C-alpha cells in the first residue's frame, strides 16, 4: 500500500476508467501484503459472524449475574459484562449485526445512488440539475450528523440505523457514479453505440455501468468501514441498535459507565470495530491501487 500514491475517493470523479484490468489488477492485489492482511481480517469477520451459532450454542444475551464483571481469564477469554454475559460471545454475535448493517446500508446506498448517478451523468439537463442540487444539500451536512438527523425522525433500532447510515452514504455514491459516467459518456465506443442507434438504457447498462464498476466497488469497500463506525457511533449514543442486542457500539456505550470498575467491558468491542474497519480500509486501498488504471503497471 505504501508504494503507491494515495488518493482520496473523490479524485475518482471525472477520471476515465477503462474496463479489463481485472486480471492484471488481481495479481497486483495479491502482491500487496497490506491489502491481503485486510482481506484476511474481513474473511475472519465474515466467517465468524456467519458461523457464530454453530460454535456457540448458548444465547449471547443470557444473563449470569453471579459471574458479572469478571476480568479476562482462560475460561472467559475477554471477561464478562455487568450482567455476566461473555464478552467474546457477544462480540462474535455482534459481528452478525455489524455485518448485516454494513451490507444492507451499503446496498441501500448503491441501489439508490448508482441509478441516480447514472441518470444524472448520462442525461444531464434538468434531471442532472435537480439531482445535483439535492446531493449538494445532503453534502452540506456532516455525514454522521445526517445519519443522526434521520435517526431523530425515524426513531431508534436496527432497521432505522440501516436506513440512516445508507442515506448518509448516498450523496458520495451519486457523485462518484456521476463523475465516472461523465468521462465515459465521451468515449468513442459510447459514441459508436449511439451512432448505430442503440437505445439509451442499453448504452447505460451494457456500455457505461460495467465501466464505472471499479470506482464504485472501491468506494463501497471503504464505505463498509464507515458504515460500521457510523452504526457503532449511533449505538454508543443510545440511538442505534438497542440493548440487549450485542451491537459493538451499544456494548461500548454500556461499558462507558464501567471504565473505573471494569475497563475491559469497553475495551474489547472497540478493538473489534477497529480491526474490522482497518480490514475494510486496507482492502479498499489495495483494490484502488490494483484496479486504478491511471497508476500504471510496474
Amino acid at each position, binding site marked *: 500500500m*505504501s508504494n503507491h500514491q*494515495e488518493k482520496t475517493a473523490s479524485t475518482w470523479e471525472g477520471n476515465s476508467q477503462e474496463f479489463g484490468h481485472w486480471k492484471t489488477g488481481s495479481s497486483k492485489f495479491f502482491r500487496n501484503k497490506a491489502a491481503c492482511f485486510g482481506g484476511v481480517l474481513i474473511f475472519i469477520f465474515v466467517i465468524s459472524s456467519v458461523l457464530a451459532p454453530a460454535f456457540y450454542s448458548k444465547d449471547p444475551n443470557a444473563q449470569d449475574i453471579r459471574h458479572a464483571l469478571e476480568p479476562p481469564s482462560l475460561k472467559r477469554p475477554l471477561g464478562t459484562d455487568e450482567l455476566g454475559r461473555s464478552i467474546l460471545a457477544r462480540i462474535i454475535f455482534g459481528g452478525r449485526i455489524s455485518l448485516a448493517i454494513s451490507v444492507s446500508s451499503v446496498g441501500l446506498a448503491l441501489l439508490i445512488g448508482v441509478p441516480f448517478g447514472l441518470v444524472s451523468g448520462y442525461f444531464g439537463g434538468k434531471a442532472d440539475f435537480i439531482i445535483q*442540487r439535492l446531493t449538494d444539500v445532503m453534502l452540506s*451536512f456532516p455525514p454522521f*450528523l445526517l445519519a*443522526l438527523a434521520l435517526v431523530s425522525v425515524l426513531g431508534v433500532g436496527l432497521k432505522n440505523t440501516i436506513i440512516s447510515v445508507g442515506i448518509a452514504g448516498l450523496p458520495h455514491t451519486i457523485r462518484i457514479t456521476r463523475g465516472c459516467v461523465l468521462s465515459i459518456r465521451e468515449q468513442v465506443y459510447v459514441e459508436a453505440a449511439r451512432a448505430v442507434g442503440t437505445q439509451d438504457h442499453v448504452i447505460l447498462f451494457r456500455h457505461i455501468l460495467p465501466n464505472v464498476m471499479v470506482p464504485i466497488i472501491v468506494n463501497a469497500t471503504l464505505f463498509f468501514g464507515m458504515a460500521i*463506525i457510523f452504526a457503532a457511533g449511533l449505538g454508543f449514543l443510545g440511538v442505534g441498535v438497542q440493548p440487549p442486542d450485542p451491537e459493538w457500539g451499544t456494548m461500548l456505550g454500556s461499558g462507558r459507565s464501567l471504565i473505573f470498575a471494569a475497563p475491559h467491558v469497553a475495551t474489547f468491542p472497540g478493538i473489534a470495530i477497529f480491526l474490522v474497519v482497518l480490514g475494510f480500509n486496507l482492502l479498499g486501498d489495495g483494490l484502488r491501487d490494483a484496479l486504478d488504471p491511471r497508476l500504471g503497471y510496474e
Partner: protein
Amino acid sequence: MFQYIFRRLLSTIPVLFGISLMLFFLLRALPGDPAQVIAGELATQDEVERIRQQLGLDEPVYVQYAKFLSRIVRFDLGTSTRTQYPVTQEIAPRLLNTVILAVAATILACLLGVPAGIVAAVKPYTTMDMVVTALALFGMSMPAFWLGLMLIIIFSVKLKLLPVGGSGGFVYLILPAITLAASLVAVVARNTRSAMMEVLAQDYITTARSKGVQEKMVIIRHGLKNSFIPIITVVGLQFGTMLGGTVLTETVFAWPGLGRLLISSILARDYPVIQGSILIFALLFVLTNLVVDMTYVYFDPKVRYE
C-alpha cells in the same frame, strides 16, 4: 477575483435554501401527528394543542414554511419544548465550546499531520514513511469514541494525570482535542504525503535543486507552498466531518458543546432544539467550505484571473 468570490457566495444560496427545506420537513416527516409525538403518549389533549400552536402546526404547510424561513432569517429558532428557553439561548454558549474544541483539534491535527506527511513524502518507501502510513491508517480506522474511552482509562483512571471529563480550563481540553484530532491527523498526513510527492516530482523542483537551492528551502518554499491547496481542501472538508464527530467526543468527555445538546435533545424529542442545532452545524459546515474556497484566491493565483 471579486467575480470569483461573488459567484461562490451566490452558489451557497440554493444550498442554504435546501438546508432550510430539509430542516422544515424534518419535523413534518415524523410519523403520525408531530404534536402528539413531541408531547409524548401520556400528554393531555391540552398539552398536545399547546405544542401544536407553539410550533404553528395548525396552519397550511406553505404558511408554516414562510414563517419558518422568516424566523430563521431573524435568528429566531423557536423555544425548547423541554426547557421553554429560546433555542438560540440554549445553543449560543454550547456553540462556543464546540468551536473551541473543533479549532483546537484542527490545529493539533495540522501541527502533527503536515510534518508527518512531509517526512513521509521526502523519504518515500523508508521505514519512516511506512510508520507514518501505518499510523495514519490506524487513526482512520479507530472509532473516536473508543479512543476517547481508552485515553480516559490510561490518563485519568490509571495515571490520574488529566480529568475524566467536564470543562473548566485547558487541562479539560487536552483529551477531547486529541480524541477528535486523531482521524484528522491521519487524513492530513496521508494527503500531505501524496500532495508533496506529486509536487516534488515536478520539473521546477529539479530546477531549484540544480540551481543549488538548499534542500530545506526546496521542500518548504517550493514544495510545501505548492501542496497547500490539496492540504487546505482536505482540512476544510474534514473540518465538517469532524463537526459530526464532536457529538461523540463531547458525549465521551461530558464536554458541554452543541453535539451533546443535540444528542440530549434527540433523546428528549425536543425538536426545536434538534432543528436549531442541526441548522448551526450545517451553517458552520457551509461556512468552512466557503472559507476554504476563499483561501484558494490566496494560494492559487490562477483562481484570481479566472
